[in-house]
């Protein structure tokens, strides 16, 4: 297991820097390195996810998807990114220019902040707060402010309706995401990501937490999809109703920011789901079967993490390309009349299960 541990690598970088620089310079340098690494990761993630979505959606739709640029169209998203960078940034005449330009940055900053707290592998974890889950659900909901500002400032009624829908939707579904995560927090007895992962050494919570954990997982996937404005819940964009919703008036790089943020948000939701319910980078372990567990440990944690996250992302893409879109009142009914009560009762049951020690 130790060969896959990133702790040694990060410690040697830290010690190497400390030997030649003052503590302040070391901190600043490390910040810059981490920020740079995340920017590169963000870009690659965006390109890969856009390509994956186009290919997966194509296979659902009896098509081939991008095939012309590069082998199997692998360079297609890179070509699109270059096109978006060189496109003219247009601003509508009566738009509030300051807010209009600010909005994409708020969205993308919130995405970055959430991305920073994710545990990718053992030791590969930029921020390990003791309130990790609380932090991540707090910063990931800042993005909706960007969407609201975008809709408000672009002087377009379609954008405004899209933004208002998005506001109502994210505020509602934030509750369900939080409560379903709380169900597992009751089990893991910690809000810190590293400890939640460590607590799943003997098996993932989705298997050990009985039916309440399964219900929480389903609720999390539904609410998580809704929170990213995707899939059957893409009311904020609602192509067939609101043309493009809140980003109707955006073009070029600013549009690309919204677009990228959507995909990376999907990754973040999938990663949280994978970490909390499916053990994050923890390999598949079954109780005390030492031999089996050892075989599983041969697969590197980073593969486990991206494998699980990728699987959840695939699920979310599957939703999106199969289901019709909900209507705004049905969306709110689903949250307030179904998911929220189910969730609250589920938490009580889970607390009872933990109290009686019935979980594995």
């Amino acid at each position, binding site marked *: 297991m130790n060969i896959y541990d990133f702790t040694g690598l990060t410690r040697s970088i830290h010690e190497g820097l400390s030997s030649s620089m003052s503590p302040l310079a070391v901190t600043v340098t490390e910040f810059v390195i981490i920020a740079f690494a995340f920017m590169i990761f963000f870009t690659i993630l965006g390109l890969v996810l856009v390509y994956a979505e186009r290919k997966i959606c194509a296979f659902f739709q009896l098509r081939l998807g991008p095939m012309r640029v590069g082998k199997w169209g692998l360079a297609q998203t890179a070509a699109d990114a270059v096109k978006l960078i060189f496109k003219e940034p247009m601003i509508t005449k009566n738009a509030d220019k300051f807010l209009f330009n600010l909005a994409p940055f708020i969205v993308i900053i919130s995405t970055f902040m959430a991305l920073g707290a994710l545990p990718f592998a053992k030791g590969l974890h930029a921020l390990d707060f003791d309130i990790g889950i609380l932090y991540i659900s707090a910063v990931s909901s800042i993005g909706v402010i960007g969407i609201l500002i975008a809709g408000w400032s672009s002087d377009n009624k379609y954008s405004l309706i899209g933004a208002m829908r998005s506001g109502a939707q994210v505020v509602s579904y934030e509750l369900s995401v939080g409560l379903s995560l709380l169900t597992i927090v009751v089990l893991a007895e910690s809000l810190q990501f590293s400890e939640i992962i460590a607590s799943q050494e003997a098996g993932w919570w989705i298997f050990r937490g009985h039916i309440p954990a399964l219900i929480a997982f389903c609720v999390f996937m539904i609410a998580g999809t809704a929170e990213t404005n995707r899939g059957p819940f893409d009311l904020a964009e609602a192509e067939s109703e609101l043309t493009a919703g809140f980003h109707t008036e955006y073009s070029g790089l600013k549009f690309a920011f919204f677009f990228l943020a959507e995909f990376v948000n999907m990754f973040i939701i999938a990663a949280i789901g994978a970490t909390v319910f499916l053990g994050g980078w923890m390999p598949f372990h079954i109780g005390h079967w030492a031999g089996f567990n050892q075989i599983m440990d041969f697969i590197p944690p980073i593969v486990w993490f991206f494998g699980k996250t990728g699987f959840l992302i695939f699920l979310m893409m599957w939703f999106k390309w199969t289901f019709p*879109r909900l209507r705004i009142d049905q969306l709110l009914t689903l949250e307030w009349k179904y998911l929220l009560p189910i969730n609250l009762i589920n938490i009580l049951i889970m607390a009872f299960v933990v109290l009686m020690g019935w979980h594995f």
Partner: protein
Amino acid sequence: MGEAVKTVTNTPFEEQEYFINMGPQHPSTHGVLRLVLTLEGETIRKVEPHLGYIHRSIEKMCEKDGYKQIVHLTDRMDYLSAHINNEAVCLAVEQGMEVEIPERVKVIRTIIAELTRLASHQLWWGVMGMDLGAITTFLYGFRDREMINDIFEETCGARLTMNYNVPGGLMFDIHPNFVQRTKDFIAHFKKKLPEYDELLSGNIIFRKRTEGVGVLSKEDAISFGVTGPAGRASGFSCDLRKHAPYSAYDKVQFKEVLGTEGDSYARYKVRIQEMWESMAVIEQLIDNIPEGDFQAKTKAVIKLPKGEFYQKVETARGELGVYIISEGDKSPYRMKFRSPGFSNLSALDHMARGAKIADVVTIMSTLDLVIPDIDR
């Protein structure tokens, strides 16, 4: 009368109301229809359709063209039932010419009309899913429609606007492969149509989005003149293939599909069921195409006697009426089309009031509007 007279003020907006323009360029109007929606929040207070963005004065152009030329203008109206439009004009002209149409022509016309109806309903099904946000259905619909288009292409060289009819018969005989390919298509589509139900009809979100949305009662359907599948979903028995049979429809057995609820889901169900009926009609005729000429003998320039001629047919969208007033010349004095889309659109405001923005898209989609048909 004890009833107080309702005062109608001239202010178009109440407080808290605003309007948005849906169209002329909008993804779900499927053409250049402009709807002015008066909204209160997301709730529709009023829908005003504005027409004229694709008006090509087809009726006026008919007045200077010969009868053989007029046929080719009409497939630009409702381009998804191009063949049926052509057939309507041909039948009206043939009424005036008083020629005997060979049985072979009647049967081939009916088969192709039903294939056109199938293609139109397949496209509608795909687009309906897309309007509701399920984009995958669009490509499933197109997959099956492609086979019909290929059959058309082989027989008459065109895939959409076929120009296959001429007054007196058909442009040319069917391709030798036509019968076999049509049979292949029917066999293929009988397996694929249940897939449509699996993908969309049983989906809980789809059901919630369509059931009880845009309800049109039978009385309203009749008074708005809503015909076709949209009218039949409200229980208005208006299938002209049954009530005023033309071509070979009097020789085949098929059910007129009627709904009762009159909501969007009923309209959806009627169209799905109609696809089964269309296949039944084709199956009855495809093996029994009579031998004979594909065209009756007509003069090079057709002149209709002085008088009025009217022919109504059932297109994929409803009742299409062709009204010709002839002064005895080689072109009509006045030509009028009663298009199904125009009347169906008129009920939109009535159906959409009190619904949400998303419901307008659903209702428009289940009315299956083709904008060039409305504007002509």
